[in-house]
């Protein structure tokens, strides 16, 4: 059966001054509606490359990405991307940054209605009181919340997150992981999260896709995560299944993520 989001035999080759660099090769995943999937792998293995091709920001060299069985040809509002850095436009307030997205998703709205909706999304991520502030006046965590509100305001079918918590201190990171989980519990939107944080991936995901190290990175292992939902940090980290999965993931990252390369050599 066709899945809503499918990556098929994706290969990405970069031309570099030192020659061709095949970052990912024959990478395939298919993601059912409503699933929370994590792409986990060592830094530099090609996670961002895969995600940005899914977002339509880069083109695949071979293979491609299909939404509902139709190949994408560029960015689309049904696929919202949150970057590692908040990437807000610094000359716009939090509210205006979100309004920019609202205006794209629902162009017929009046400016007042756009503003009202933007504030609704800021409220959803818990920062309604910062609506009028410029990004520079906000903490990293709050900025990233604005970026999440901006993505949600598109009402996308797919939420693509590229290490969105990577730059945050651990307390803020926990808060934002919980925020994203709460939001997901409410709307069960399909989420693809790129991360190199094992605990983060285990805590939030339905399924973890482990990538082998690049170059020529592939899917190394797919792990379903059947921890009970809704999850909270304390009960997850006292769950025996959690430790079994954690051991399995770490074992892969330490010992098996290089296997394909060795085979090729």
């Amino acid at each position, binding site marked *: 059966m066709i899945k809503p989001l499918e990556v098929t035999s994706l290969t990405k080759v970069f031309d570099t001054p030192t020659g061709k660099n095949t970052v990912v090769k024959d990478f395939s995943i298919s993601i059912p509606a409503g699933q929370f999937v994590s792409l986990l792998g060592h830094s530099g293995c090609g996670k961002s490359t895969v995600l940005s091709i899914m977002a339509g*920001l880069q083109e695949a060299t071979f293979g491609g990405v299909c939404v509902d069985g139709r190949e994408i040809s560029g960015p689309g509002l049904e696929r919202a*991307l949150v*970057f590692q850095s908040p*990437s807000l*436009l610094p000359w716009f307030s939090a509210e205006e940054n979100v309004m*920019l*997205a609202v205006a794209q998703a629902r162009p017929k709205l009046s400016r007042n209605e756009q503003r009202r909706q933007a504030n609704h999304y800021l409220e959803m991520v818990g920062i309604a009181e910062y609506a009028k502030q410029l990004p520079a006046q906000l903490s990293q965590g709050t900025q990233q919340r604005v970026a999440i509100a901006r993505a949600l305001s598109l009402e996308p079918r797919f939420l693509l997150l590229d290490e969105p918590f990577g730059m945050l201190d651990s307390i803020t990171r926990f808060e934002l992981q919980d925020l994203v989980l709460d939001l997901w519990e409410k709307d069960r939107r399909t989420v693809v999260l790129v991360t190199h944080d094992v605990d983060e991936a285990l805590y939030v995901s339905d399924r973890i896709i482990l990538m082998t190290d690049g170059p020529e990175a592939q899917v190394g292992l797919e792990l379903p995560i059947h921890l009970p939902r809704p999850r909270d940090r304390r009960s997850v980290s006292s769950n025996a299944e959690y430790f079994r999965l954690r051991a399995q993931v770490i074992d892969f990252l330490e010992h098996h993520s290089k296997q394909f390369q060795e085979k090729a050599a």
Partner: protein
Amino acid sequence: MMKLTLRNFAYSLVGIIALGALWWIASATFARDLPSPGKTWEESKVYVLQPLEKRGEMDQGIGRMAYYSLTRVAKGFLLAILIGTPLGFLLGSSNTFFRMFDPTIQVLRPISPLAWLPLGLVIFRQSEPAALFTIALCSMWPTVINTMSGVRAMPEDYRNVAKVLQLSRWKTLTKVSIPATIPYIFTGYRLSLGLAWLVIVACEMLTGTPGIGGFLWQEYNSLIYSHILMCILTIGVVGFTLDRLMGIVETRLRVV
């Protein structure tokens, strides 16, 4: 930029006094034709104290003459930025465009106003448009180059945001590219204005039009050297003020 405090003002007086002393010594020793600071003031004070007086076409208070020059500079500068800003944008955003026009620009850039003006006279047959042509052509380049670097320096993140949100070309330009480039553009404007003011004197000298530079050249021909010094000082003070004003605008924009 230095803060305007009493202490800084006291320090800057040292430089002014040193320059005055040097001037006085020169006029008293080797440069016998150079009027001393005192004589210069005596012979020029009527122009300074009645800056808006009009006694004849080429005999007006410095306020009036500076005003003529400033109007001319304003027109030329406006022309320069109207052409220079979009040109810089195109050069910065299109590699093809850059490769087509950058070499030509590099050749045009170092040409002196003294070379452009006669060409302007040939083309327009009148001194006023020729002067504007020269000011615009000479002062445009900092705007072009700074705008271009501003567009190039735009963070990849902003470009990606525009793509992910599927902003139209127009929205990308007005909501993303221009705001991101504005600090660079204004640095260009400040430098361009400085150049436009440098060029004005040459233009007025060669065309003999009323203005601070035209007056300077006329007084040189009439052997009234003290007025040359007065004009030079006026040019300096006006240029400095323009630069400060643009500097204020520039820092305001940089904060955003």
